[in-house]
């Protein structure tokens, strides 16, 4: 009952916040973005909104882990995912601290990037284990060849999208740490995206059921985060200032969908 109420409330909040950020990305000149939705208010809605979704996802995923039997693939997968989400939440907490407690601009790279980097192997490990668990379930999830072609297709798409970002970094590298992060983020995002797309394809076979809703939300969230990260890389590399609000919207949508997927999974297990 409580989880159902929470899911609805989060959905409404996510839709409202995403709408505000998307409208600002499309029409930043609109008078409402001078007052009442000043840049500081927009920053607050985005930063605190993302933190709230991640906090809910962290707490709910911790509760989910205990619902699975010890020493099973699924429990380990949920444990890794939970740890990954907590790491992302800590990264976002750094942004909250910088922007609203210390009232300072977030520099790049920052302390937050340590947590974001830690989250990648955890989330990737979780998705690999979920993929294995799906296969072991005995449900007809489609031929392995389909997954090979799909993974190759997404990898090709990532290579095409990643080339303009990675080439200048390799040809003309900047500060070592910044360059390392700028190279690592797109590569790790590509791996994450391949796994998420494979799992979404499998989940589509469960469409119409509650399991499908959980996984499409959760994995759709990761796809949105990868899209946000890619745009952020373009923003850094080519000074695409105009996509700033869109990047914020994609991250917010990503974290919101991940939180919703986890809340629905918790509801499913209750």
């Amino acid at each position, binding site marked *: 009952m409580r989880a159902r109420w929470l899911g609805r409330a989060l959905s409404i909040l996510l839709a409202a916040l995403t709408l505000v950020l998307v409208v600002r990305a499309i029409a930043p000149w609109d008078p409402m973005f001078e007052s009442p939705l000043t840049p500081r208010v927009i920053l607050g809605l985005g930063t605190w909104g993302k933190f709230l979704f991640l906090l809910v996802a962290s707490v709910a995923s911790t509760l989910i882990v205990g619902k699975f039997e010890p020493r099973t693939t699924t429990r380990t997968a949920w444990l890794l995912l939970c740890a990954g989400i907590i790491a992302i939440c800590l990264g976002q907490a750094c942004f909250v601290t910088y922007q609203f407690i210390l009232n300072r601009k977030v520099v790049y790279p920052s302390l937050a990037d340590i947590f974001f980097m830690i989250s990648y192997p955890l989330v990737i490990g979780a998705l690999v284990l979920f993929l294995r668990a799906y296969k*072991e379930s005995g*449900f007809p999830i489609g031929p392995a060849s389909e997954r090979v072609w799909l993974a190759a297709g997404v990898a090709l798409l990532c290579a095409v999208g990643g080339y303009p970002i990675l080439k200048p970094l390799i040809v003309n590298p900047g500060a070592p740490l910044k360059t390392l992060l700028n190279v690592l983020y797109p590569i790790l995002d590509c791996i994450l995206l391949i796994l998420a797309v494979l799992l979404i394809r499998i989940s589509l*076979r469960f*469409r*119409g059921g509650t*399991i499908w809703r959980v996984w499409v939300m959760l994995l759709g969230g990761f796809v949105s985060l990868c899209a946000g990260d890619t745009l952020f890389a373009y923003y850094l590399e080519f000074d695409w200032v105009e996509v700033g609000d869109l990047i914020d919207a994609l991250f917010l949508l990503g974290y919101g969908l991940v939180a919703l997927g986890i809340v629905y999974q918790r509801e*499913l297990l209750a």
Partner: protein
Amino acid sequence: MPGLPIAASVRKNTSEVLETISRVLEPYIGKLMARTSAAAHCNDLGIRSVTVDGLQIEALLEKLGLALVIFLGKDKAGTVVDDMRKAIEALGEPR
């Protein structure tokens, strides 16, 4: 608390059992997956006759339960298996 297994002597119509299982599974895994997975697991167990006995039904429920555990955890999967068992028990004798 898991329900009691269906008695070995019980006989039910196979297609009715599969339809009942699909009906219980549908809200969780969707209509298409419910139908295909029930039929696929039945095939894996070598159940091809018009009627099934209690032992075969229990074997089928166990297989489906193990698959559901991955998505629903042990407790919830156990509840769903019990729901399937009750629904199958409520079916009449094969005609």
